[in-house]
């Protein structure tokens, strides 16, 4: 559940999930695989790095049944993500898009600051 007093905006959305920003608590909410989880800014980006680092080809090549899934338990969250290959790809797409939008927002605010100070 997203925090009730949240002042949150959509960062990025795909058909598999969404990322929201809560500007009151300075955190991101990840809505994925049926649940919503809050991440602090640096935890969010570390989580993305971990998802990006999953070795998909090893998952595909390894014939054992346990290799069909990978388990990611991000620190400081109550969540445990059990992802198959599709899950990893869907989560990556969502996090990539969110990261792009977050960075774009940062660049835009920096530009606006420069212009407003220049005026």
């Amino acid at each position, binding site marked *: 559940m997203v925090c009730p007093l949240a002042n949150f*905006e959509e*960062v990025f959305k795909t058909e598999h999930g969404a990322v929201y*920003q809560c*500007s009151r608590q*300075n*955190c*991101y909410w990840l809505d994925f695989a049926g649940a919503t989880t809050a991440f602090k*800014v*640096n935890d969010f980006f*570390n989580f993305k790095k971990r998802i990006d680092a999953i070795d998909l080809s090893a998952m595909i090549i390894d014939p054992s049944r346990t290799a069909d899934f990978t388990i990611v338990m991000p620190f400081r969250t109550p969540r445990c993500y059990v992802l198959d290959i599709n899950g990893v790809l869907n989560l990556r797409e969502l996090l990539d898009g969110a990261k792009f939008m*977050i*960075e774009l*927002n*940062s660049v835009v*605010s*920096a530009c606006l600051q420069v212009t407003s100070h220049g005026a």
Partner: protein
Amino acid sequence: MKDLLRLKTSLNEEIEAILNAQIKMEAHASSVYLAMSAWCDDQGYDASATFFSEQSEEERKHMMKLFNYVNDRGGKAISPEITNIPADFESFRSVFEEMLEQEMHVTQQFNIIADKCIKLKDFVTFQFIQWFLEEQIEEEYVARRILEMFDVIGEEGMGRWEIDKHIPKVKYEG
């Protein structure tokens, strides 16, 4: 939308990554110098053993300077994993040749960092890097000077003993 990213860090992701790579390189240099110190000690080059142990300390200080900078700017410094440290060296001279090669490599890395800072307009890090660029002048000078002693003094007879004795006297006056 509120810019949460800049609240957390002033470091660009690429700059943070390249500085973390440099932290690792300084740690690696520190370990290599320690290995050289052990080798020199084992071979009876006492002054050189002390020289390399001091170099090792210096490299650790370089590492910590970068480490603290990354953290202070809101980035996350990574404690490096160091592998592939040699235990044996070909000869007394080759140890100093490797020292010069290592220092030249470090200089080159700082040039790449400086270039990246300019491209990304990170003039704060660019300014921070200046100290290291200047330090590299001294590091390369000392290594070259020592290598020249192998030619000037010569390695025959008492040569290597004489060279070892002169190592602590090699200083960069600037």
